[in-house]
């Protein structure tokens, strides 16, 4: 089974018998977009999203001039790249964290098991504190063995306070109680670390619905693993429907995953990417740059 060959190389191949002059015809474009679609799927972009995306690009590419210094392949790539950046949110302000409510502003992290919520909670606390906030982290995972200890350990490392209750406490109550505690401690941002859960686990999804309704967080962020495959769309849709996501954080981008899941999630739910995480250390959190992710998805 053939390994993935770089998209630009494959496009050069397709256009090799085109003179590099004139306009891109529908046939040229169709042939090129077949390769683009495969490259997107190879990058874990959802099948349907890839198809819709390619349709959008098609309209822009047919009839485009290829007279300038760009080869036809480069021309198509550049149209695809621009469109990707656009779909990923461009320079949209929605990509930024919104903490403009009356303090304490609450950020709730949700997602599948092992996506990186707990680690990301600590990175966010670290990031916000550097910006002058006083964060509080809340250990609302009562299920995973040593989940509370994990957050407490990170809190100690960072000297950021952690609110927790003894085993057996109800996660909804823990979150509610933490708000009063934040006020007492003069913390102006509260980060809720919830347990990992499957989007099809009704009982567990009801738990975060209840927390959301009770606490009314300013931000509800889906923490999603950059390595996620085709199911990312379904997962994000289910979480979005349950708790009305305000954004997502794409984790583990320090590997070689292409991160196509983020494109799928953004285009199907409209939920913007707000941060990317790029390592296990506490400073490995970056603001989201759509152009970088676009290049990454295209393997450029």
């Amino acid at each position, binding site marked *: *089974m053939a390994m993935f060959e770089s998209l630009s190389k494959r496009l050069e191949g397709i256009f090799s018998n085109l003179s590099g002059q004139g306009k891109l015809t529908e046939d040229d474009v169709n042939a090129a977009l077949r390769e683009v679609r495969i490259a997107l799927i190879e990058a874990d972009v959802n099948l349907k999203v890839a198809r819709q995306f390619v349709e959008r690009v098609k309209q822009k590419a047919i009839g485009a001039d290829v007279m300038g210094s760009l080869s036809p392949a480069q021309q198509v790539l550049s149209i695809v790249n621009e469109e990707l950046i656009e779909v990923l949110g461009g320079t949209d302000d929605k990509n930024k964290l919104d903490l403009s409510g009356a303090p304490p502003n609450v950020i709730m992290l949700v997602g599948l*098991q092992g996506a990186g919520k707990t680690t990301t909670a600590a990175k966010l606390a670290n990031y916000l504190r550097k910006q002058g906030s006083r964060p509080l982290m809340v250990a609302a995972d009562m299920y995973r*063995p*040593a989940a509370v200890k994990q957050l407490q350990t990170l809190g100690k490392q960072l000297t950021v306070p952690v609110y927790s209750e003894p085993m057996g406490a109800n996660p909804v109550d823990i979150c509610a109680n933490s708000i009063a505690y934040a006020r007492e401690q003069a913390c102006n941002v509260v980060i809720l670390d919830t347990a990992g859960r499957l989007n099809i686990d009704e009982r567990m999804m009801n738990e975060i619905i209840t927390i959301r309704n009770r606490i009314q967080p300013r931000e509800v962020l889906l923490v999603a693993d950059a390595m*996620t495959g085709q199911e990312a769309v379904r997962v994000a849709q289910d979480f979005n429907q349950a708790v009305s996501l305000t954004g997502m954080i794409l984790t583990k981008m320090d590997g070689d995953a292409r991160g196509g899941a983020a494109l799928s999630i953004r285009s199907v739910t409209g939920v913007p990417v707000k941060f990317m995480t790029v390592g296990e250390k506490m400073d490995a959190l970056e603001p989201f740059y759509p152009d970088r992710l676009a290049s990454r998805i295209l393997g450029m």
Partner: protein
Amino acid sequence: QETDTITDDLWDELEESLLAADVGPGTTDWLIERLRQRVEEEHMRTGSQVQRALREELASLLGPSSSLRFAKQSPLTVILVIGVNGSGKTTSIAKMAYRLSREGQKVLLAAGDTFRAAAIDQLKEWGERVGVPVISQHPNSDPGAVVYDAIQAAQTRGSDVLIVDTAGRLHTKFNLMEELKKINKVIQKFIPDGPHELLMVIDATTGQNALLQARKFAEDIGLTGVIITKMDSTAKGGFAFAVADDLGVPIKFIGTGEKVENLIPFDPQSFVTALFAQE
């Protein structure tokens, strides 16, 4: 009846269901080509025949089912568990420990993840729940030293199986892959035919990166098997076909939940059936 003929729509549907299950464009192309060839050669007439042939091809990519390998020369079997961050290594170790203990094996666990916050506590808590002792040192201590300790302890106590937990690591991190080689060497020094299993844990919700991961781990330290976790999700784990076929490494277990009982031996037939199941 014309409903079961082999049409372009049928090919499109097959392609789509494979891609949607994370089988990946490369393997999907290969499968479709292979099926078209078989349709010719075997004079297939119906869509059902094609569907059946596809299931055969898929199952044959996975290879036969394969159970855990135990030590022949030494009394102690060592199982080393590796994989990228958050895939489900520690939980799968607890599940294996539970399973093996119930089969009458004397199991010992080694807390080889000394890096991640509370990773040692997590394994210890699982050990208590399952009733299996855990050998550990302080956070940030050398994982090689933990493994050394654990082998000594296993030999003194007369354990049958030692399962070693390791920190999650992305396959692209040179230093962390070197650390893993070192852990492997410590095992080999004391148990020359070990580790008897080198199991890589992959999350079923992973997409095409799974193959890159598996390939790198296989190259750097070798793999004897794969565990696919989180099969209770809506993801199908279609990368398994490329992983099993390309690397020739069998899938040994499937994780189907967060409880200790949620680990089942891998069965190629039911995996293929589940691939086409509608939720």
